[in-house]
């Protein structure tokens, strides 16, 4: 995964981290932050402009956009979070066992990952969602699978380098079991790299899941979800009310940029230095 990274100046990192934190808080505290019920329809009040009661206006059904944005953070963050946790766990598990056992097992895992890698993740996720139904779970599971080879490749290369270091051999000479060495030494030393991969993957997963929602294969109306909001706002753009799509898109972009900036900072901090 060659990150689509802008060079983040070091000072931007705390800002980016703060943005990530704020978005996460927004998702957690949605019921307390949102000024209105995000699902409350009020047709007489459709397309209301920015005002005190509706700080970001309302959508085509008169629902409060700020409330929908705040609630939308929940699924919009939960999806990528599940994807990176699932893909991170599975990918790292495969990577470490392949690197540790080597031989035919490593070959088998590497070939399988190559095959999975050959499918573009988004296409795979879209296909699976189209075949197995829309909603939250299907695209997330599909995308998790699609991310496994991406994470596993990076982690396998790192695990390979790590397992050949003399400290691992010293532990073997001390008679520690493979399991002990992998869990207590190999994995903790790979954790920073995994964090970087997860943070980068988070941004990608968010864009991919938003795209899937946008295509109508993810969450269905009336769910409050940023990708879905971008899609639902489309007809309104033509009617001259772009705010729904716009604020949701801005939320996606800001969150992705913030996570990617944090990832880059982590990468600089922990970048490949084994000493």
């Amino acid at each position, binding site marked *: 995964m060659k990150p689509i990274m802008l060079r983040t100046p070091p000072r931007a990192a705390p800002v980016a981290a703060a943005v990530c934190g704020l978005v996460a808080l927004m998702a957690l505290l949605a019921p307390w932050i949102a000024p209105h019920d995000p699902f409350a329809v009020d047709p007489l009040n459709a397309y209301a402009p920015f005002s005190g009661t509706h700080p970001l206006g309302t959508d085509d059904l008169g629902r409060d956009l700020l409330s929908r944005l705040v609630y939308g953070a929940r699924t919009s963050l939960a999806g990528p979070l599940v994807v990176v946790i699932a893909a991170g766990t599975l990918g790292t598990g495969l990577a470490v066992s392949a690197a540790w056992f080597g031989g035919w097992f490593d070959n088998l895992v590497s070939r399988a990952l190559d095959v999975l890698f050959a499918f573009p993740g988004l296409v795979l996720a879209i296909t699976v969602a189209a075949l197995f139904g829309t909603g939250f779970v299907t695209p997330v599971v599909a995308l998790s699978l699609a991310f496994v080879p991406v994470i596993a490749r990076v982690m396998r290369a790192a695990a390979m380098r790590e397992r050949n*270091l*003399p*400290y691992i*051999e*010293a*532990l*073997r*000479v*001390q*008679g*520690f*079991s493979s399991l002990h060495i992998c869990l*207590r*030494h190999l994995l*903790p*030393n790979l954790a920073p790299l995994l964090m970087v991969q997860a943070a980068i993957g988070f941004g990608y997963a968010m864009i991919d899941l938003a795209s899937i929602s946008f295509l109508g294969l993810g969450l269905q109306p009336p769910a409050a979800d940023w990708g879905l909001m971008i899609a639902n706002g489309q007809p309104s753009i033509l009617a001259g009310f772009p705010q729904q799509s716009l604020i949701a898109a801005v939320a996606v972009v800001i969150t992705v940029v913030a996570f990617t900036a944090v990832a880059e900072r982590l990468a600089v901090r922990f970048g490949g230095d*084994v*000493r």
Partner: protein
Amino acid sequence: MNTPLLEVRDLRKQFKDFVAVDGVSFTVPAGGSLAVVGESGSGKTTCARIVTGLEKATSGTVLLDGAATLDRRRRASFVQMVFQDPYLSLDRRQTVSDCLGEVLAHHDREMDRRSRAARIDELLDLVGLDRKLGESLPRHLSGGQRQRVAIARALAPNPKLLVLDEAVAALDVSIQAQILNLLVDARAATGVAYLFITHDLSVVRHVCEDVVVMCRGKVVESGLVAEVLEAPAAAYTQRLVASVPRPGWVPSRAVSRG
């Protein structure tokens, strides 16, 4: 005669069609110190790795205390190893105490926290490290200090045999001398035997009584250090000895700098 601590007989190791070790035999008596010398590529490390179980021999036997096989933990408390690169042979996330404590707990499950802490202090004393350094991470230590930690870790299970593979090669000359002295003292204090592997003949005399000279996977000469280094019989050993600076030898570069 007593069973030797380590007996290596007709050891052979083949990587694909390359023979790295070709019929090597030697023994290390209890408390002894055997140097294995030879140019780089002569198969010394491969022998060391086979002795410690990191590598399997293609053929031949390695007898530890007369036994061909020991279970993992027994073997580990019998033979230990110190590696060349002190920068890479410690887990960078682990403090010195954690590193030693983990090994102690592994070899003696019954050991309680307090006796473990006492044993850690004892080990730090043994290798000449300030007890305060116990809380340090490897990155806060110098190369020499790290190698002392590696030696302490290797001595933690009270092994009978310590394999040192180029254990001072990565260190500055002044630090080398300190570590060599430490090895002499540690052997006197614990009675551990050494299999001391080096390409550098100048460090052998200080630490070892016996020596085997390896060339391209074969032993070309063996005997007492004093005899082999004074009057080498094999042409290969003569060349090796001739290339080593003698006591009183002054590097010409230093002379010309004046």
